[in-house]
């Protein structure tokens, strides 16, 4: 456990500048968006040609987020792409290049599953750090909005409405606990499948590329096809919707368990440097 935590710490330490970079990109991108969009919208409200402002027609932070869909989503999409890239980099950087750190990692006097789990934990932590940062940033952006917009034209926004006003926030920050667990559980499953694919490639090299592609395809098919096979899109399905959801959850859990077990086995028995 102690060595697992040390490995997690090391992984976070190695990614810290990359993570700070993504946070800085989101911070700068979204604050500029809020500042510019709010100033523009506030100017429109001051236009004398505009009819008088009543209480129902005020400028809200929710409106600013709603009209800036793309600019709010862009840094998050870049961060998501960077994290997806990092899922591969977190393994390959230790094999490739002048410093083959994998020699050292595989020779550590600790169970090799700790390597796998520490990398997985690090990725999950990065996702949640970025999500938390986004939530804090939204609150900060709302403050900036308050500084720019005079009180007489400023409408109040409920935080949940702000989240629901951007399509990407709505996806990444689901308001129900079960949706949150499903979404991030699905994400963790996807990462374990990719980790196993990477380890298949590292274990069997050229043949491993084929094995990895086949493994990802098989997992993808199992997860994607199950609801349809159970009749999720048919009116007279034998199963209730919640039953289909439960079976799909079980399939995802099974795919995750098989991926992790296969990953451990490859690390213990097949991997080489």
């Amino acid at each position, binding site marked *: 456990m102690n060595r697992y935590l040390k490995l997690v710490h090391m992984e976070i330490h190695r990614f810290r500048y990359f993570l700070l970079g993504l946070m800085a990109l989101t911070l700068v991108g979204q604050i500029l968006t809020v500042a510019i969009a709010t100033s523009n919208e506030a100017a429109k409200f001051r236009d004398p040609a505009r009819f008088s402002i009543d209480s129902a027609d005020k400028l809200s932070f929710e409106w600013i987020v709603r009209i800036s869909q793309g600019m709010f989503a862009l840094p998050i999409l870049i961060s998501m792409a960077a994290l997806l890239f990092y899922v591969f980099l977190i393994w390959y950087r230790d094999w490739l290049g*002048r410093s083959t750190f994998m*020699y050292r990692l595989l*020779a*550590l*006097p*600790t169970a090799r599953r700790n390597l796998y789990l520490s990398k997985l934990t690090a990725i999950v932590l990065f996702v949640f750090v970025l999500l938390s940062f986004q939530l804090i940033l939204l609150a900060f952006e709302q403050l900036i909005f308050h500084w720019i917009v005079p009180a007489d034209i400023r409408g109040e926004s409920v935080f949940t409405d702000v989240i629901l006003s951007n399509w990407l926030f709505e996806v990444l920050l689901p308001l129900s606990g079960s949706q949150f667990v499903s979404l991030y559980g699905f994400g963790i499953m996807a990462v374990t499948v990719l980790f196993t694919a990477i380890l298949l490639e590292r274990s069997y090299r050229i043949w491993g590329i084929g094995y990895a592609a086949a493994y990802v395809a098989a997992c993808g098919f199992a997860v994607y096809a199950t609801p349809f096979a159970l009749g999720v899109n048919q009116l007279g399905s034998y199963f209730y919707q919640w039953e289909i959801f439960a079976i799909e959850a079980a399939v995802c859990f099974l795919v995750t368990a098989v991926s992790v077990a296969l990953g451990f086995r490859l690390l213990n*028995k*097949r991997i080489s440097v």
Partner: protein
Amino acid sequence: MIEVVNVRKRYRRRYVLDGLSFAAEKGRITCLAGLNGAGKSTALKVIMGLAPYQEGAVRLDGKPIDRSSRERISFVPDRIAMPSSMKLADALQFMADFYASWNGARARELMRFFDLKEGDKVGSLSKGMAAKFNLVLGLAPDTDYVVMDEPFSGIDVFGREAVASVFSSEWVEGRGVLITTHEIAEIEHLIDHVVLLKDGRAVRSFDTERVRDEEGKSVVDVMREVLLA
């Protein structure tokens, strides 16, 4: 004693180790020698659990090698095995964090001996300095055995003298050393035992002193006789 018993390792369709057997004893320097592609580095990787094998056994003092053995055998690979962005001080801390056998005082002595600076980054080291730092990481732990893969690779002539002097120092004394090197002449006088490898097999195994005394031959003479025959 590190024992490699009848190990066979296949890479694609070829056996790179084909029934390899030899032993490295504690307190002795054993050299795996052979031409390029003979299987020397692969044999060391098999001992360190860095390469799977299909048949045979690797034992440490009669027991199969497992992860606890890594506290008793340290490894000096043929390349720097630390992230380029890491400072040497961080790399030393990494080793201290993970190895119960790590000896910080010895690490500091070795750093001074090789004139390495803790503030330097791993990626900024020249090939020779990186090889010396690898030796620091391999020799600092209180292990019974040290496995070294080409420790002279990339080191200049004076650096080689410094590295060679390590083999007769207290840092190595009492430990079992298993080494592969192309620079046999550099350490021939320090080697106790030689295992000659050809096509993944041990084709001859001998004590250097006995061969020197009884046959009047150097290690290179025997290598020429056996490997080029």
